[in-house]
């Protein structure tokens, strides 16, 4: 664990150092070339902004109005036979939509049921192994102007369902 943690913290600085040293050895004008590339940074941020705004708008209206809860309630009878505890179902639903929303929900679940309970462990695993699909898609496609995402959403949702089911399964195997 300690080693993994160390790798996590040092990975990015090490990568940076390698790039800079390699550039130095190859005689690249580091400062000038860096500036030249960095100029694109602000442009990219501006380019992704409308997409971010659109996603934040829809997700937050949906979440704060209780629309999310309604969807979750509809799905509870369907997911019961799969062995997904109904307590973690809201998390499974909100995870693809909102990073901060799911983080708040995870905190809530852990405070209510405890970190070292089956529910707490499933929720933690689920949180760590899934990603905010809609936000990522919006900015990645938005930045390069793609309008038709084809099968991306569907494949990503299949992968998300696999993550939800796998996290319940592995916790059942490991902690019970």
């Amino acid at each position: 664990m300690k080693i993994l943690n160390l790798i996590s913290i040092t990975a990015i600085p090490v990568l940076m150092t390698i790039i800079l040293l390699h550039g130095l050895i190859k005689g690249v004008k580091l400062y000038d070339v860096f500036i030249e590339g960095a100029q694109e940074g602000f442009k990219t941020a501006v380019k992704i902004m409308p997409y971010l705004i659109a996603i934040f708008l829809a997700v937050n209206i949906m979440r704060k109005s209780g629309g999310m809860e309604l969807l979750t309630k509809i799905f509870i009878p369907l997911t019961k036979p799969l062995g997904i505890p109904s307590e973690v179902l809201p998390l499974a639903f909100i995870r693809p939509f909102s990073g901060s929303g799911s983080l708040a929900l995870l905190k809530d679940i852990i405070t209510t049921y405890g970190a070292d309970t089956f529910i707490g462990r499933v929720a933690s695993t689920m949180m760590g192994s899934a990603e905010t699909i809609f936000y990522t898609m919006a900015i990645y496609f938005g930045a390069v102007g793609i309008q038709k995402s084809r099968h991306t959403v569907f494949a990503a949702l299949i992968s998300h369902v696999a993550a939800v089911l796998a996290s319940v399964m592995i916790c059942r195997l490991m902690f019970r």
Partner: protein
Amino acid sequence: MNILWVLMILLGMLMAIVTGNINIINDVLINDVQEAVVFAISLTGIMAVWLGLMNIAKRSGLMNSLSVIFRPIIRLLFPSIPVNHPATSAIMMNMMANMFGAGNSATALGLKAMEELQAINSNKKVASNAMCMFLVINMSSIQLIPLTVIKIRADAASAFPEEIIATTIFTTTISTVVGILACKALEGRKPQ
């Protein structure tokens, strides 16, 4: 995406009206939308740093060397990317940043990768197979250590906050593999 977006807003609106909470809509319009702008701006710094570094790596030839090393993986997952294309290194660096939990760096590198993929995309409005695959892998989250989750567990006085690392790696692997298979299975439907 178009339909989904409208559905989300309409369902939200409907719920707000039914529950008598129309104020929520105004709150979202004023506060949450602003958050999106703040977030995009806050990404600018790290984005500029990585774009600068990537430019150095491109010029020094490091990107090329990296793409040769990772050629086997890339050929398997992204057969349409030409040999020695800079997209390869951008994709690999994005995956590494993701793995080590460097979220914002990963986003910056990921956007760079998308740009490189767009350069070799035949139809600029439609996502290529490589783009779909890249996003699906990206969104199945390949993080090794979920630091935020561990922190939350530790704060909640867990006896062993790190015990979910193994389960998370297992789950992430499953979901990434399933995502890759789903992507491969679906992409044949509509060739470009």
